């Protein structure tokens, strides 16, 4: 019960008691007296309720009156209103934009039935098709045979389902209209009970059945957006057929509008039953090999079963399966004598996402950054409100004199700041919506398949409304309280201007500005650190000239294996004829791509005898690989066109390999054997090459061998053509397209990029941090400069009289200017003194993200400082100039 209510009860009771006393004195018995008193009260409860109701009504009415009063006063000073609302909108917009990403990547639950019951049997961050890994320990991703066994033996989940972790880029063409048009779509292979386990019902038509998985039925479910966009949102789309890969699929259903699959950060347009993989992706087999790991597996916990019990249960099934599996027991038996793989359950309510691991820390860091921007915006607004409240001292004094209570005045001034906050919030939501789209666009330059479902939900709206109100209170409360302490007599007096009370106001203003300077210094230094770290990463030498180097991905899964060596040579030959292309080679993984390969091996003639110590990375390369890159051979020769044509079992090792396994030399002519679980391939070492960086500018030299791509290790589905160019990138790119078409029309050409673009893509997180930090600190600095300018010009205008006297007594314009600038820099100096230790402390928080410099990097600090000082000079210069031009006669008369 609220205190007012308790008081109301006490008062009513006291009232009743007096009446009862009176009736008893008149001779009534106690019960009778009580009844009579209550009757007079028309029911005590109702009467009390009447009071409360009136009170609520009055409060609402007062609120509306304050609101319209606030609105009117704001309209009277549009300049103030615009600055305040824009400042706030920038702060709120930045927060709302970053928050919408945080929400989409980290917070949001899948739009399915009871997402909290879902668990992932695989690592949410795992993605891709993994055929090389020798698994041990906790499994990150599963194969189809494993999934089938788990599903068969399952006792702990009410349902178990799987989805292929690679989202496929496929061409869909409508069957009826012939092959005239085709659209690029993003497809996913999913288990038969996928929709059923998730509890996702079709918006139109139906979803898959388990039977359709068993029969590999050619059916498909499309996403709502895709249906609207590509199928005209027509119900006739149901039952129509589309061609995908080598199959023709009948569309049987449309998913609900908000469902985009279980992978956050990717959009799926069309789902196929998992067993149709050979039709959708011809030329590969993902279904039979137990070591082709590509499935995210999700289960729904049976009621009453804990995640722990479920984990124990599913691992029993998994171990039983592993014991029957020859490949696994082969590797594990060699290593430990028994299978040591297991499954770990993780909460699945937020779905899978390779994005989340990479982006959640940077996003939280950015959230902190925009939080600081918001603080600066609040300080700025508090300052503005303070200045305004001061200008209204007379009005406030008059209202106090007329009997307005202090709380009432504070409430009114607060309502005014809430009006500003509300306007800023509305504008901020718009800015935030634009901003979050820009952010996604920025991120997707690094991840071509990124897609994010931006705020269609209420989280972001609630968040924005919340911070708007909070900031409204934050910047409004202190000035409102200060303003209500106006001394009535003085405020009403004629010479209120420029008198002693001003000192308090400027002091508060100064403290706010000092805080702003300190906070912007923290942001600027942080931004400088990120920018310098990014530069450090970027300028690391990779061991070859990375400009004028292009990559073109080609999918060769459909190409006949026996003819591949000839195909590679034909491609090299034809690509070399493109004007501006000097050398051409190829490799399995390309440069700075997502994949790398590694295996255990046996090494002939190496002093290293421990088999556990023998492992290496490897790359499959075509002829002239190092010539194309421009990397010098240290010993021997590289793989030649002749080796390629013969599919010779030869390889080149790098210096790190030589140092590690042949410390005494004598590597040339020796043999190494790659121990892939199902195949063993032996290569003769024909050369030693310098160490180079192929996957990250930050990588350390590691042992690696380069084998002949014409004699592949395991299966090869895609490769990257590598071109050393001297001409225009765009012209070469179109030349590549034409050339590949001429060699083989059916070869799917994937993206063409320069190696520099490829490196930039790898650095997306670092770029995001550096670019946004720079942007947000610029916004912060701008606000701080406005604040500084405001305080300095206010205080010089207050000192007009004093300055006039000084000038009348012979002070020069220059010395007045110096005086005002000194005042400015005095404040900035305090801000810097507070800001430097803060910046150092904050820098330590993200020291692990910095490359090649420490959090206390003096250059970054110097950059931050000089930008702050420059902005301060600018902000102080205008009022200083104005002060120096004060006409003593005018200013003294004014006083």
């Amino acid at each position, binding site marked *: 019960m609220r205190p007012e209510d308790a008081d109301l009860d006490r*008062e009513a009771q*006291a*009232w009743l008691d*007096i009446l009862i*006393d009176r009736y008893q004195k008149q001779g009534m018995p106690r019960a009778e007296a009580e009844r009579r008193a209550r009757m007079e009260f*028309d029911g005590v409860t109702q*009467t009390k309720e009447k009071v409360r109701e*009136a009170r609520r009504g009055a409060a609402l009415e007062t609120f509306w009156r304050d609101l319209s009063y606030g609105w009117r006063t704001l309209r009277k000073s549009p300049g103030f209103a615009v600055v305040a609302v824009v400042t706030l909108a920038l702060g709120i917009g930045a927060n709302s934009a970053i928050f919408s990403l945080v929400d989409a990547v980290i917070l949001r639950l899948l739009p399915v039935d009871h997402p909290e019951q879902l668990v992932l049997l695989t690592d949410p961050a795992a993605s891709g098709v993994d055929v090389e890994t020798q698994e041990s320990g906790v499994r990150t991703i599963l194969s189809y045979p494993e999934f089938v066994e788990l599903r068969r033996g399952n006792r702990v989940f009410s349902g178990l389902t799987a989805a292929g972790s690679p989202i496929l880029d496929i061409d869909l063409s409508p069957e009826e209209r012939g092959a005239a048009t085709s659209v690029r779509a993003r497809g996913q292979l999913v288990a038969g009970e996928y929709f059923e386990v998730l509890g996702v019902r079709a918006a139109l038509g139906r979803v898959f059945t388990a039977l359709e998985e068993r029969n590999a039925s050619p059916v498909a479910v499309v996403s709502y957006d895709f249906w609207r966009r590509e199928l005209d949102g027509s119900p006739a789309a149901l039952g129509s057929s589309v061609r995908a890969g080598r199959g023709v699929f009948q569309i049987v259903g449309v998913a609900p509008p908000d469902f985009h699959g279980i992978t956050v950060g990717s959009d799926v347009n069309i789902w196929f039953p998992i067993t149709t993989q050979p039709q959708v992706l011809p030329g590969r087999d993902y279904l039979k090999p137990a070591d082709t790991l590509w499935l995210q597996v999700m289960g729904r916990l049976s009621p009453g079963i804990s995640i722990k019990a479920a984990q124990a249960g599913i691992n029993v099934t998994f171990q039983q399966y592993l014991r029957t599996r020859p490949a696994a027991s082969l590797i594990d038996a060699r290593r430990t004598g028994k299978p040591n793989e297991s499954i770990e359950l993780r909460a699945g309510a937020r779905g899978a996402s390779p994005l989340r691991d990479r982006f959640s820390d940077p996003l939280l860091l950015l959230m902190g950054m925009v939080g600081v921007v918001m603080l600066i915006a609040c300080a700025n607004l508090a300052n503005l409100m303070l200045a305004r409240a001061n200008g209204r001292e007379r009005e406030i004094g008059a209202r106090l004199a007329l009997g307005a209570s202090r709380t009432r005045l504070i409430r009114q001034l607060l309502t005014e700041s809430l009006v500003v906050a509300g306007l800023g919030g509305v504008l901020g939501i718009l800015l935030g919506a634009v901003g979050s789209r820009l952010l996604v666009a920025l991120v997707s330059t690094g991840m071509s398949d990124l897609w994010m479902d931006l705020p269609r939900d209420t989280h972001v709206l609630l968040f924005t409304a919340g911070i708007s109100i909070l900031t409204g209170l934050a910047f409004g409360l202190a000035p409102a309280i200060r303003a209500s302490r106006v001394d009535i007599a003085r405020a009403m007096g004629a010479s209120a201007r420029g008198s002693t009370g001003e000192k308090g106001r400027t002091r508060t203003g100064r403290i706010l500005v000092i805080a702003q300077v300190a906070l912007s210094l923290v942001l600027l230094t942080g931004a400088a650190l990120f920018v310098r770290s990014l530069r450090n990463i970027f300028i690391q030498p990779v061991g070859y000239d990375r400009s004028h180097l292009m990559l073109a991905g080609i999918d060769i899964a459909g190409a006949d294996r026996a003819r591949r060596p000839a195909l590679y040579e034909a491609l090299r030959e034809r690509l070399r004829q493109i004007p501006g292309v000097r050398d051409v080679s190829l490799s399995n993984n390309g440069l700075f791509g997502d994949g790398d390969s590694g295996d255990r091996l046996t090494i002939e003639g190496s002093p290293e005898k421990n088999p556990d110590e023998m492992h290496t990375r490897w790359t499959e390369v075509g002829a002239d690989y190092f010539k194309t890159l421009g990397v010098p051979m240290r010993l021997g020769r590289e793989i030649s066109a002749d080796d390629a044509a013969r599919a010779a079992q030869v390889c080149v090792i790098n210096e790190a390999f030589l140092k590690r396994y042949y410390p005494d030399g004598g590597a040339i002519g020796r043999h190494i054997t790659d121990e892939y679980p199902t195949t063993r391939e032996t290569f003769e070492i024909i050369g030693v090459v310098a160490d180079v960086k192929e996957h990250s500018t930050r990588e350390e030299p590691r042992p690696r061998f380069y084998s002949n791509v014409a004699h592949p290790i395991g299966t090869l589905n895609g490769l990257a053509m590598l071109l050393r160019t001297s001409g225009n990138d765009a012209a070469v790119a179109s030349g590549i397209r034409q050339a590949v078409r001429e060699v083989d029309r059916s070869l799917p050409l994937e993206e063409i990029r320069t190696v520099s673009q490829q490196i930039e893509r790898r650095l997306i997180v670092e770029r995001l941090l550096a670019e946004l930090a720079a942007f947000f600190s610029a916004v912060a600095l701008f606000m701080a400069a406005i604040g500084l300018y405001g305080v300095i010009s206010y205080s010089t205008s207050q000192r007009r009289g004093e300055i006039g006297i000084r000038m009348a007594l012979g002070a020069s314009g220059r010395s007045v200017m110096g005086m005002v600038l000194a005042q400015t820099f005095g404040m900035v100096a305090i801000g810097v003194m507070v800001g430097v230790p803060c910046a150092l402390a904050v820098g330590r928080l993200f020291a692990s993200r910095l490359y090649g410099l420490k959090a206390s990097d003096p250059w970054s600090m110097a950059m931050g400082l000089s930008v702050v000082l420059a902005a301060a000079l600018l902000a102080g210069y205008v009022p200083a100039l104005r002060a120096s031009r004060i006409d003593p006669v005018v200013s003294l008369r004014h006083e």
Partner: protein
Amino acid sequence: MEETTEILQGTLDLLVLRILELQPLHGVGIADRIEQVTRGVFVVGPGSLFPALHRLADQGWVEGKWGELETGRRAKFYALTKAGRARLAKEKRNWQKIATAMSRVLAGEV
């Protein structure tokens, strides 16, 4: 009781303010005084007086403070505030105008 009259809307506030102008009083005291000074024409029950007092307090015209009666019972005593005094003056003028106008009409100067 048959003699009592329904209080006009708005009149009650004026009556209460006027009564409180003389001295602070508690609820029952105010009701007694109204009955007494209007010679029993107006009888105000707690059912309407209680909300009226709170309405006036919320407007800032009266102020309630806990005090003690002669009998030793505690009760809330209401007093006129500065704003209340100003309000009363205004209401009085208003009432005079209405009363004059009404009596002129009723006296037949149509």
